[in-house]
């Protein structure tokens, strides 16, 4: 394989903070987000990328696919060791502690509790900047489903946090 161009390295460095946020938004854990970003960069450097694609969006896509793979693996792991998973869930995470300093604990809790399919679509559109059309293609669902999930995601968060209270 030919050595990657220096401009690709620079573009990766530019995109890295955005992809890190994207990864964190998906998995809600700093260590997992860093692992995801690292794997994403390795994937970009080791495989060819379509010429007409925006690198950041390409990295978002790779990141999300890797996250899905991780979720599948976690599901298997959780089934094998449910007690361990429960114990880990009781411990406060460093990212949760950091997050509480910026947004309220109630917001963090509401986001953590957001069902994955809603968090995923909100991440794609609100954090990743995807259009409804791109998000629909990414998730292989109709645009109407994207609209519906986004409305639902925002409504769940708004009601859980109680902005109108």
């Amino acid at each position, binding site marked *: 394989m030919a050595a990657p161009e*220096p401009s690709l390295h620079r573009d*990766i460095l530019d995109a890295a903070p955005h992809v890190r*946020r994207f990864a964190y938004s998906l998995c809600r854990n700093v260590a997992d*987000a860093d692992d995801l970003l*690292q794997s994403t960069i390795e994937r970009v450097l080791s495989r060819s990328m379509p010429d007409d694609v925006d690198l950041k969006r390409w990295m978002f896509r790779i990141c999300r696919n890797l996250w899905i793979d991780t979720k599948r693996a976690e599901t298997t792991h959780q089934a094998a060791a449910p007690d361990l998973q429960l114990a880990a869930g009781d411990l406060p995470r460093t*990212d949760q502690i950091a997050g509480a300093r910026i947004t309220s604990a109630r917001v963090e809790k509401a*986001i953590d509790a957001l069902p994955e399919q809603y968090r995923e679509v909100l991440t794609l559109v609100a954090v990743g900047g995807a259009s409804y059309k791109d998000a629909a293609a990414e998730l292989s669902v109709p645009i109407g489903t994207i*609209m519906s999930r986004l409305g639902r995601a925002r409504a769940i968060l708004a009601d859980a*946090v109680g902005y109108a209270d």
Partner: protein
Amino acid sequence: MTDMDEKLSAYLDGMLDESESSGVAALIADNPAVAERLEALALATSDFVQSASVIDAAPMSPALAAQLARLHVEVARPGRAGNVTQLPQRKQFVSFLETHRAVAAAAAIATGLIAVQISMPPPKRATGLPADGLILADSGLERLLNEAASGSMTAVGKALDAEVRFSFESVGGAPCRLADLSSEGGTSRIVACRETTGWRVMVASFSAPPSLGNDSQYQTAGATSSEAIEIYLDSAMAGPAMTALEEAKRISEKWPASQ
């Protein structure tokens, strides 16, 4: 969720067509409850995005930090865009002086010291020497490069100490020396090579003191600027650094170029 939530959500994203958007805008204007709901959904989105940025303040994992550092080094390698060390020779010394003077000015304001200006001559002087990196004859810096053995600390100006770290031969056969210049304002690291007209600064970097309160401690150039120097050295060094014996011989012979 209601159909209204879905519509308001799409309205926030600008994804409604013109007529739908006008209809929702009219509803928002006429109905305070709808306006309030729109605000709640917008706040939810805003908090969601802000929550993702929490990770910006979190330290990266060592593995990720190392991976990004490697990419930075790749981007900064000589001959690649974005590297500051490979300036044309005639610009190198000007850049060095500008950097050092800026620091010196800051230090002078803060402490009243003007050591660096004294030891670093202006780019153009009455003698007509060009601002191309040539180090003035009989300057403290020239004496350092001519006479000091690596590892010995020498005062080259008022409140400016210097230490030659090592000597080497360039791929072009010129003897070169790497030296650190340290004042209260920070540390500069230079690589100077001997030419027929004298020593010429080939590359320089600067690092500010890492913190206050330890100004009695000698500081070396910071990691980032050292990295830039190392990249230069990778391309310029013909072989390993000279031994103390080789260096002493060159000093006694007044640094002749290799044949």
